[in-house]
């Protein structure tokens, strides 16, 4: 098999799940005839028809609302937000209707909400969002943010088969920039399990999505400097895989958290708290974080570059921590 992009991996996951189970349907703006703003759903309509591939008006609340309704009927809708930024327009449906349904009255909501996320493509303040923390802070949801094509496909399949509402974030900077050979056969990646992408002894970097790649790059440089970095790729942000994080921290005794999301209230805080609670005695240095700045995502390239965390930021923080 030829290597495929992350975008293609996501497309395959949707196709294969729809082939497998007629209860899986897709809904969103411009996903049918057009095949989606990023062409993730290209070919879906031809294959599965109008009943299962639903083009909607510009109504995010209707999309999510209708998806919940369909899930109550035992279907498994996959709802696309054209850009994940527009999730703000259906925030109420997601946090109040979707997330609380099973807890309140035992009605499971097997649905996936997915969309292109993240910065680095000059999308500006409304096409670059990393909205994970709004939903990591919403009990009842699961939140996934993969960094590889393999994980994207396997996790999306798990998400579609899950009985809970899952927010599946796709980093658009990675869509076509990474390629991988995928297994011929059906496979899934379990939700809620982080993975150690690189073993190391000196320092743990906990990260995910696009920053995983920047962290790996930084780790290579650091290796040359004699600093052996372990990289934990979270993959699932909610539920958080505390075990893998703590295990790594207990081994390396130093923790650096890297995320592309803005700093204040970002997931690094949660991870820091988890580490303090579960591995305080093991920490041989402060917990540091490398994140985006606390501002909207600026548009112009030099501004966006400054705004986003980069390999150099990771290197400085890691060196500081290693020297501690």
């Amino acid at each position, binding site marked *: 098999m030829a290597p495929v992009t992350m975008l*293609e991996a996501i*497309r*395959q996951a949707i*196709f294969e799940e729809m*082939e497998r189970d*007629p*209860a899986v349907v897709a809904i969103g703006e411009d996903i049918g005839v057009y*095949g989606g*703003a*990023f*062409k993730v759903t*290209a*070919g879906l*309509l*031809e*294959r599965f*028809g*109008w*009943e*299962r591939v639903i083009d*909607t*008006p510009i*109504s995010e*609340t*209707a999309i*999510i*609302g*209708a*998806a*919940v*309704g*369909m899930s*109550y*009927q*035992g*279907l498994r809708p996959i709802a696309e937000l054209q850009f994940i930024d527009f999730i703000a327009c259906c925030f*109420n*449906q997601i946090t*109040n*209707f979707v997330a*609380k*349904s*099973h807890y*309140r*009255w*035992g009605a*499971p909501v097997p649905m996936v909400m997915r969309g292109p996320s993240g910065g680095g493509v*000059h999308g500006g303040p409304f*096409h670059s969002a990393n909205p994970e923390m709004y939903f990591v802070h919403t009990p009842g949801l*699961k939140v996934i943010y993969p960094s590889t094509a393999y994980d994207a496909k396997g996790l999306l399949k798990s998400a579609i088969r899950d*009985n809970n509402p899952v927010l599946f974030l796709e980093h658009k*900077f990675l*869509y*076509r920039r990474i390629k991988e050979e995928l297994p011929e056969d059906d496979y899934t990646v379990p939700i809620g399990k982080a993975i150690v992408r690189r073993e190391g002894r000196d320092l743990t970097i906990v990260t995910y999505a696009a920053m995983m790649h*920047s962290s790996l790059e930084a780790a290579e440089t650091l290796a040359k400097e004699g600093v052996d970095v372990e990289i934990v790729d979270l993959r699932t942000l909610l539920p958080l895989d505390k075990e893998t994080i703590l295990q790594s921290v207990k081994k390396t005794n130093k923790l650096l958290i890297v995320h592309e999301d803005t700093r204040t209230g970002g997931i690094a805080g949660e991870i820091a708290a988890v580490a303090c609670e579960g591995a305080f005695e093991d920490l041989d240095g402060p917990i540091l974080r490398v994140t985006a700045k606390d501002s909207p995502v600026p548009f112009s*390239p030099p501004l966006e*570059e400054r705004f*986003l965390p980069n*390999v*150099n930021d990771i290197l400085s923080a890691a060196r500081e921590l290693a020297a501690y």
Partner: protein
Amino acid sequence: MSYPLTRDQHLELYYYMKLNRMLDEQLVRLFRQNKVVGGLYSNLGQEATSVGTAYALEKRDWIAPMIRNVGGLLVKGYKPADILMQYMARYDSPTKGKDGTSHFGDLKGRHVVSPISMLGDLVPVMTGVAIAGRYLGQNIVTMTWVGDGATSTGAFHEGLNFAATQHAPLVLVVENNQWAYSTPVAKQVPIHDLADRAKAYGIPSAIVDGNDVVAVYQATKEAVDRCRAGKGPVLIEAKTMRMKGHAQHDPAEYVPKKMFEYWEARDPIVRYEKYLTENNLWDEKTKSDFVARIEKELNDALEVAEKSPFPPPELAEQGVYCDGCHTIEAEWKRSKKEAMPPQSSVKPEWEVTDFGGFDLASTMAKQSAAAGANGGNGAKSARTVAAAQKSTGKSNGRPEKLKVAARVPFGRGPKGKEGRK
């Protein structure tokens, strides 16, 4: 159209309305005894609307109630004890104490979706239930209620608009009870009839005397049949009156006394009693038997409710996620095969036949024809867009290769090629 009711049906309507009323009164007493937890939202004066609309549905149909639709819940098979225990926050309530009021439901048996407090949100949800029902071949209709106030929400608009576009079998009852908390209808929107909201979606609407249970039933039955025939959603405005404050704490001093008097004189139960008498559908004995029966039912219900314990604290931590507690299975009423390729494969193409140009004469003509012209198929709108439905290709179990050239929505800009560090 007219839908004749048998004597038994007439009496059943009475039973539900009176039960609704007396349960309401019982709840008020319990509230004063501090046995109700949280707010209590009276249904007083709206029984005919709730009961009459729900009564037009069949067992397979779905509803989602709002706070003042206890009547609809009773028609759908919930028992007074369920309502009492919800309000009293007991362990044996439908939500085991996790939520209160009419916030409960039942997916498999009664087909009831639990509302949330945020107004309007049920409209898209019941649209989703409706289109899923169509896909599964269930031939169902879904119904929900919104208040006059809730018609101002974005969720109402997005939901009804989507239902219209999809020709979903949804009956939306706008329960115009004149007030939204302290706000009169005229401060929600300067239109006289909320039924006019339907004009924005090209769907038919009806206005009905919400305090006349038979009229409500008739109008709803017509709408339900229309929906079931695949003709798309219908909006029904029921004109009625909230005869109490928004909730128990609210004395409704902002409502002119005369307005209460006007509506008091049109009490739906008193009116229906008169109707039953005038039409020789019952006698005094039937009436007092009903009252006695309901009294007993409510006393029994209260006993059940009072006996039910409060939930155990540990329950607070349970059920946030569905971890194997439910097996999710759609109720297929058609062959699954039908839903699978290649049968349903289509060309990804809009067949636009009306180019939307400015043409005053044709604009006028089309306009008047619009409401009736919507076909029954959610996938196409009969007038201007037809979806190409011809079968193409065959199934090979793997997605075909992407034929459309891959394009990204953004230009690269001066630094795009480098990626970033």
